[in-house]
Every structure is written in structure tokens, then in C-alpha cells.
């Protein structure tokens, strides 16, 4: 009897019991018609070869284990960062079930989004009825201050016109005429979730700056910050705000999910919490400058911003020493506010920590995968620590990203052997890790399959993280964030060292 009430065994240990092992073996032998163990072993070994790698890289049509999602995921994330805002997706309802689950699994939070549930009849006649009813119902039930509409690929393929549909819905009094309903077309067959984020932020700003009323910019002293799609947004946005508050900068964070995706447990469910207010979003046209923290999440938005006469600056995820320096100096330059001594001390403490640990990092090889901005930041930080980024991969990275990543690697002797892989997936990375292995992998939870296959330890530092809890509640931005990233990397380095040898099982490292 494998089970007992005294010590209940679940899947983790139950299936190790002899009764189950026997069941597996007998099922396999009698019923499964699987390939022989020898054939499996041979193929397993073959996938580790250069020959397999070449075939793998010759793929033109099949994508296997990509590290990217689709546009509307980024769009609903962007929309959630505004006060009292209900993200609304025009199209199939299944997509919305997926976005909600995907974000909830990472943030461990409720993710309210509505769909207007288009089905076959809408595929034939268009989704106008759905949007008229959908906006009315969503407004009545959930009492939002704003509804932000994006689309699924179904609505895009049949060519539904959001601008016209929303106007009709307002004529039919689904929502009051002056109720804000910004929108963005977010076809999932173009770009990725980072594109969707960009389109949606642009759509929201455009709504307030141009559609609601044609505003003329009256530049003041404030600056705008656009954080970009970030799984660590909860903590990173707070860290950015802390810096800006410390410096005495007036600012608007455009799209801030740090409250709504990190609500307390105290007996009340907050469907809406925090976020950029509508007044701030409207007023953001009057900023003297807009800083994007993630260039590749904001290409189109920054074009819009620049067209309003604002100064612009775009960074690639301010993580690490140089990236944080550059961000703070730019803020200082744009606002005339000095970087205070307290922040300089934080910087010094980070440098101190890296100095203390550099011997354990120097020359360690890393594979990094994730979104374009994250991978650039991670690579830069690894170079600063004397690590060697060997493979840098972004499934949703394009030519511009590739050029930037190559230039970054070329800027340091530690990047000399680094290779950049734009548009490749994690099955490509598997081949790379077998043929040109690294000491560590940095990426998302999807990397756990690579870790299992190759034995190379995974360090989870980017979205999505499903299988570890609460990482996103601590920042990776800024000097404090970099310190935390350093510690996560070091912990894996020391764990590997401890597990590798009984002789060098040192008490002090």
C-alpha cells in the first residue's frame, strides 16, 4: 500500500513507490508501443551533436518552444496600469482566459479582463453587436473609470474597425459619450507582447492627446516614464519612483501596475488599485520629456511623444551599474535635479558587493534569453561583472536588437566570444547549449526544460516565472535591484560549487 493517511504522499513521492514503478513498466511493455530504449538513447545523443544543430538551425517553418507571447497580452498589461481601468478584448473569449491565466500564474494576483466573446456569427457579420453590448455590460457591472480595448487575431483577420465600432457604441449609449475608451489594434500575427504593449500605450496617449480633444503641448517641468512590459514591474516601478522621489523629480509613470498586480490580503478584493490617473495621462502631453525604460516596448509610442515636441530618451531596462548610471544621469540632465549622495552611496555599495564577489564570477559563461530589452541589460550587467555572455537570444528580437546586442558584446573583452541569436527559439538554444555549453542559463521559467536536458543551472530573472514564488516582488532595476540580481547569480554559483566536490566543500567562500 503506497499511500497512508499519516504521511500523505502526493505526486512528488507517490509515483516513486514500487507499485507505481511496476505499473509504469508494465504499461510501457504491454501497451504503449514506444520506440526501444536504445532508439531513444541514440536519438537523445544525436540531438546533442553539431549535425543536429545544423538541421535545427535550417528550420524555416516550425517554431519550437519560443520565448515570446502575442500582442494582446502586452496590451492588457499596459491597460491594467491605469487607474480604475478595465482591459477589454474585442474578439474570441478564449484568448482572454489565456491572458488572465498567464498573468495570474506569474503575478499570483487576480487579473480582471473582459472579452466580448465573438463567435461564428461575429466572424461572418463582424463584432459590432458584441462591442455595443460588451461595453454596456462591462461598464454597468464593473464600474470602471476607463475601458481600454485591444483585439484578438480573429477580430483583426475579419477587419473590425475599433474606432468606428466604439463611436457607434457611444452613439447607442453603451457608455457615456465622454467616457474614455482608448483602443489599439493588436494583431497577434505581428510582433509580440512587447509590440502590443507599445501599441496600447500609444493608443491610450493618443486618445487623451488627440481623440478626446486635440491638445497642444504646454511643456512644464514634469517628465514621463514609460516602464515597458516587465514581469518585475511591481517592484521595479516602485524602485524607479523611489529614485525619482529621492531626487525630487516631478514625474508621471505612464502605466503603473505596481498596485493592481500586488494587492494586499486583508479581506477586501481590489479589482482596481493604483495606476496612472486619467488626469495624469491627459496631462502627460505637457511633460518636458519622456523616458522609456524599454526601447523595444515603446518604439511607436516614442514617435508619438517626439511628435508632440517632447525630448525623448530610451533605455534598455535599467539594470546593472552602467544602465542605472545612464538612467539617473539622463533624469538629472532633463530635470536639472542632482543625483543625491544617498543614491551615490547605494551605487558604491553595489560596486563594493561586486568587488567582494568578482572572483566567483570572472569568466563564467552565460546563456541569456528573454525579451530584447531585458537581454541587453542582462548582457551589459554580466559584462560589468566579468562574466562572459556566450549566447544572447531573443525570440522577439529583430535586426535592430541584433545589431545593438552585437555592439554591446564588442564593447568588452568579456563579450569577445558572445553570439547573438535574433528570432531563434529555445529548441535552437538547446542545440547551442549542447554544442557550445555555458555555465549558467538566465531566462524565464521556460528555461527549466533546458536545465533538465543539459544539466546547466537556470537562473530565473525574467517573465514569466511560474514555478518560483514572489521573485517579482523584489526589484531588479537600479543599484539595489542589481545587488539582488548579483546575489541570485552568486547563490547558483556557490550551490554548484558545493555540489561539485566533496574535497572543496569549503565553509568559507
Amino acid at each position, binding site marked *: 500500500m503506497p*499511500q497512508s493517511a499519516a504521511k*500523505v504522499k502526493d505526486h512528488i513521492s507517490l509515483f516513486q513507490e514500487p507499485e507505481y514503478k511496476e505499473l509504469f513498466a508494465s504499461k510501457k511493455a504491454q501497451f504503449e508501443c514506444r520506440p526501444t530504449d536504445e532508439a531513444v538513447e541514440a536519438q537523445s545523443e544525436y540531438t546533442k551533436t553539431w549535425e543536429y544543430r545544423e538541421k535545427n538551425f535550417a528550420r524555416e517553418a516550425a517554431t519550437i518552444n519560443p520565448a515570446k507571447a502575442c500582442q494582446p497580452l502586452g496590451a492588457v498589461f499596459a491597460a491594467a496600469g491605469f487607474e480604475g481601468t478595465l482591459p477589454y478584448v474585442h474578439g474570441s473569449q478564449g484568448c482572454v482566459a489565456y491572458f488572465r491565466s498567464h498573468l495570474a500564474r506569474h503575478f499570483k494576483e487576480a487579473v480582471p479582463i473582459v472579452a466580448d466573446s465573438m463567435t461564428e456569427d461575429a466572424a461572418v457579420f463582424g463584432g459590432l453587436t458584441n462591442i455595443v453590448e460588451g461595453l454596456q455590460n462591462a461598464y454597468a*457591472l464593473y464600474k470602471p473609470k476607463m475601458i481600454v480595448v485591444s483585439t484578438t487575431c480573429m477580430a483583426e483577420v475579419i477587419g473590425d474597425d475599433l474606432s468606428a465600432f466604439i463611436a457607434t457604441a457611444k452613439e447607442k449609449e453603451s457608455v457615456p459619450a465622454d467616457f474614455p475608451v482608448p483602443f489599439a489594434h493588436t494583431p497577434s500575427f505581428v510582433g509580440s507582447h512587447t509590440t502590443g504593449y507599445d501599441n496600447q500605450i500609444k493608443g491610450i496617449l493618443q486618445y487623451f492627446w488627440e481623440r478626446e480633444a486635440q491638445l497642444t503641448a504646454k511643456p512644464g517641468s514634469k517628465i514621463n516614464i514609460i516602464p515597458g512590459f516587465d514581469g518585475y514591474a511591481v517592484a521595479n516601478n516602485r524602485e524607479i519612483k523611489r529614485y525619482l522621489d529621492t531626487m525630487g523629480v516631478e514625474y508621471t509613470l505612464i502605466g503603473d501596475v505596481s498596485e493592481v498586480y500586488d494587492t494586499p490580503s486583508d479581506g477586501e*478584493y481590489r479589482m482596481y488599485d493604483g495606476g496612472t490617473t486619467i488626469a495624469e495621462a491627459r496631462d502627460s502631453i505637457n511633460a518636458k520629456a519622456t523616458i522609456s525604460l524599454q526601447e523595444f516596448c515603446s518604439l511607436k509610442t516614442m514617435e508619438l511623444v517626439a511628435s508632440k515636441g517632447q525630448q525623448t530618451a530610451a533605455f534598455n531596462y535599467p539594470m546593472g551599474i552602467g544602465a542605472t548610471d545612464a538612467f539617473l544621469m539622463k533624469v538629472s540632465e532633463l530635470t536639472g535635479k542632482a543625483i543625491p549622495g544617498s543614491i551615490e552611496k547605494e551605487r558604491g555599495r553595489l560596486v563594493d558587493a561586486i568587488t567582494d564577489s568578482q572572483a566567483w564570477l570572472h569568466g563564467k559563461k552565460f546563456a541569456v534569453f528573454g525579451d530584447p530589452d531585458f537581454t541587453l541589460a542582462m548582457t551589459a550587467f554580466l559584462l560589468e561583472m566579468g562574466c562572459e555572455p556566450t549566447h544572447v537570444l531573443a525570440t522577439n528580437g529583430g535586426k535592430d536588437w541584433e545589431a545593438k546586442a552585437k555592439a554591446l558584446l564588442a564593447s568588452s573583452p568579456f563579450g569577445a566570444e558572445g553570439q547573438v541569436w535574433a528570432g531563434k527559439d529555445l*529548441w535552437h538554444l538547446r542545440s547551442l547549449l549542447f554544442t557550445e555549453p555555458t555555465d549558467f542559463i538566465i531566462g524565464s521559467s521556460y528555461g527549466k526544460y533546458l536545465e533538465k536536458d543539459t544539466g546547466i543551472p537556470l537562473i530565473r530573472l525574467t517573465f514569466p516565472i511560474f514555478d518560483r514564488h514572489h521573485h517579482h516582488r523584489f526589484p531588479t532595476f537600479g543599484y539595489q535591484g542589481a545587488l539582488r540580481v548579483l546575489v541570485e547569480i552568486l547563490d547558483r554559483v556557490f550551490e554548484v560549487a558545493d555540489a561539485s566536490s566533496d574535497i572543496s566543500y569549503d565553509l568559507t567562500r
Partner: protein
Amino acid sequence: MSLDETNDAAFHEGLIKEVLEQYPEKAAKKRGRHLNVKKTDDAGSSTCGVKSNIKSVPGVMTIRGCAYAGSKGVVWGPIKDMVHISHGPVGCGQYSWSQRRNYFNGTVGIDSFVTMQITSDFQEKDIVFGGDKKLDKMIDELNEMFPLNKGISVQSECPIGLIGDDIEAVAKKKIKDIGKTVVPVRCEGFRGVSQSLGHHIANDAIRDWVFEKSKPEWETGPYDVNLIADYNIGGDAWPSRRLLEEMGLRVVGMWSGDATLAEMERAPKAKLNLIHCYRSMNYICRHMEEKYNIPWVEYNFFGPSQIAKSLRKIAAQFDETIQKKAEEVIAKYEPLVAEIMAKFKPRLEGKKVMLYVGGLRPRHVSNAYDDLGMNIVGTGYEFGHNDDYQRTTDYVKDGTLIYDDVSGYELEKFIEKIRPDLVGSGIKEKYATQKMGVPFRQMHSWDYSGPYHGYDGFAIFARDMDMAINSPIWSKFKAPWKAA
């Protein structure tokens, strides 16, 4: 459980009235048909009194998914030695990647492909020019990457049906080209009103593209059964299989948790189909009954009373040897059941439970709660049909609140007003519920636990419900300096 006891019908009817008042008139009328309380009339006829399997109302935050989720996510995805293509844009496959916890034995990427996300990653040009050529090429590439695969399925995402691709023609061509099973599935997400049509379409694809396409050489036996519609969530199908084997049956196919294509192909040679999730695979059972004369029996392996009842019901289809063994199996596990009850029942007795799950569990798990002395006060299906609600009347008390395709708003209000001791639903519902201070277990994924099937699973089920309800954290929600 005693169905003679009742839940508070008047209170629940009041709640329904309250939530409907918040809707605009048209939506209130539509939603009103999906909310009710279970009643039994004087003649003893029971009803849940709700309409079901109808389009969701736009904008209300339905919890439902789509046909693709029903086909790729539920029926096809677990078949381990086939490569399943998410055909269309990247998202659908990405969000469903490794999320159903269909356990299997095998080497990923070599002879098993369950925890992989394989997609044609449609770009704009594929929408404009069609994706058939890409699919054709992709199948060759996959066959080269994964030569030990036994077949390939094409799981259609929304655009496929809208742009007029002919995936059936591609499949026919590739069957010849690669000499393996290739299955086109028309499970575009806009079809139907929920996951449910995806199950049906997936069943039909097995009928049309798997059955009779090969001639499995197979020595049949008198006790051959198929274990149908157990997706092996957290390993569910394995304790189930053990029980069936212990009672002397030979499980020749597991559908589709931990299944190989061979197990699907030989199914029509079995003597009996045992179906767990009626909603998702009744179609293929009916087909096998009509075409191959294989009877089917619904069973329920959640909780000891239903397990014993089911073992006897299954055994009744066979001879006395099997019947005797079934009794031995029940007797063998009695001490374990007694231990589980002794340990957990005192901690769970009298606790109120609300469920909102898929197409089987809103009724199937209810007796497992009853076994532990808990009381189901409300239940509903994401994508149940009328026959599911009919079956539900055998499981729940009069006065139980019934909600079909519940909206986020309704569920939240019901939970807030009823204040159950436990809610069993999905990831989308989990965090809102917990923040209200109400214990919660995910009842799709078993909240990363399981298995819950069989006697071995019941111990885990009881432990998990206890953990959720009796966690010390619930007493810490209010800051002590706040007035009560």
C-alpha cells in the same frame, strides 16, 4: 450524504435577484436563465433549472475558454508520442504550454512531446497568403527534428478557418509523405461557445483520422477496457488504472493522459469503455458503441463512496471473478479510507463549499466533499450541457445555488454573500477569492498537487482541503490595530 437535507433556497434566490439587478436589462434577461437553485417537485423530479451551452454574454467576464483549448489543451495535447502543432499565431500555444499538468512517462523532445510548445507562429504574410505551404514544410521539419514521433496533429487557431486554409488537404498529402498519422483538427477558437465544442471536434478527429487508419495487431482478452477521458492531471489516471488492474481488468488504452497513439488506435478492440469525464469524450464513446458495439459506463473515482459504487458498477459488466475481486479491492482499501476519515473529517466536517469548474467536476467531486462531511452550497459549470445539469441533480441537495457560465461579477458576489469555507475553481478565480479571506483550491490543475483520483488520490484531496481551510494565515488578515 443525505439528499434529504437542503440548502437555503430562499437565500440563494435572493442572491440571484441581487446580482441580476446590476445588469443592463438585456443582459439581465440572458443571465437570468443561467442562475437558479436546485429543486425537487412533489412528484420527486429534480432540476437545476438553468439553461446551458449558450453563447456567453459580451463584456461580463466569462471564465470560459475556447474550442482550441478544448481540443489541444484537453483531448489531444496529452497524447504523448505525437507532436501537436498550435497552428496559427504564437499566443495560444504559449499560454497553454505545460499548463494542464498531463503527466506522462517519456523523454521530452525525443519520444514524448507533451511539455513542448510547437507552433507555426503565423506572421502577417501567412494571414495574407495562407499557411498551408508553411504547414506542409513544418511537418517535414518536425519529422526531421523528432524522428521518433508517431504522428502529428494540427490544432487550428482562429485565423485558420477565417483565411480559408485547407489543412485537410495538407494532412492527406503529409500522411503519404511521412508515412505517419497526421490529424487536422478544426478547433478554431471562435467555433462554438466554449471549450466544449473543441472536445467534440477533437473526438470527431479521432474517429475520422485515427480509427481504422491502421490495423493494429492485437491479441484481445475478455477483460480489455479503455480508460476514457482521464487526462492524468497530476497523475490522476495512474491510481485509477491501479484499481482497475487490481480488480482484474486489462486497461488497453488510456485516453488521453499518458496515452500513446497506439492506445488510441486499438481502442475499438476493447470490450468496454469506462468514461470519467463524460462531457469531453462521450462523443467518441457513443461512436464506438454504434460502430463497434462497445458499451460504455460512466464512473467516478473521486472519494471513497463513489469509488466503491463505481467499482461495483464496472464489475457488474463482467463475470463473478471480477465482481469478487472488486469487493476485495474495496475491502483492501477500507483501512486506508478509515485512517483518512479519522484524520481529516473532524477538521473538515460541516464546512461549506462552493465549486465552479469545467464539465465534470462540478458534480463529480461533490461526493468526495460529502464523504468528508462537507456541504456543497453552490456549483456550476463553465461549459456543461443540459445532460450535465441533469446528472448534477443526483449529486447536490435541494436549494443548492446553481450558476452556469458564471461571470466574474456574479461569482465574486456569491462568494462575498455566502462566505463559504472553501471555493474550488480555477487560477483566474483564485486570488480574488483568497483576498476576500476565503480559502481556495484550484480544481482544474489540483493547484499543482494531485493525483485526486482513486483511494491514493483521496488521501491527497483530503489533505489539500484541510491545508487550505485550516491554514493559520486566515487569522492574520486583519491588522490587530484595526477595530474588528
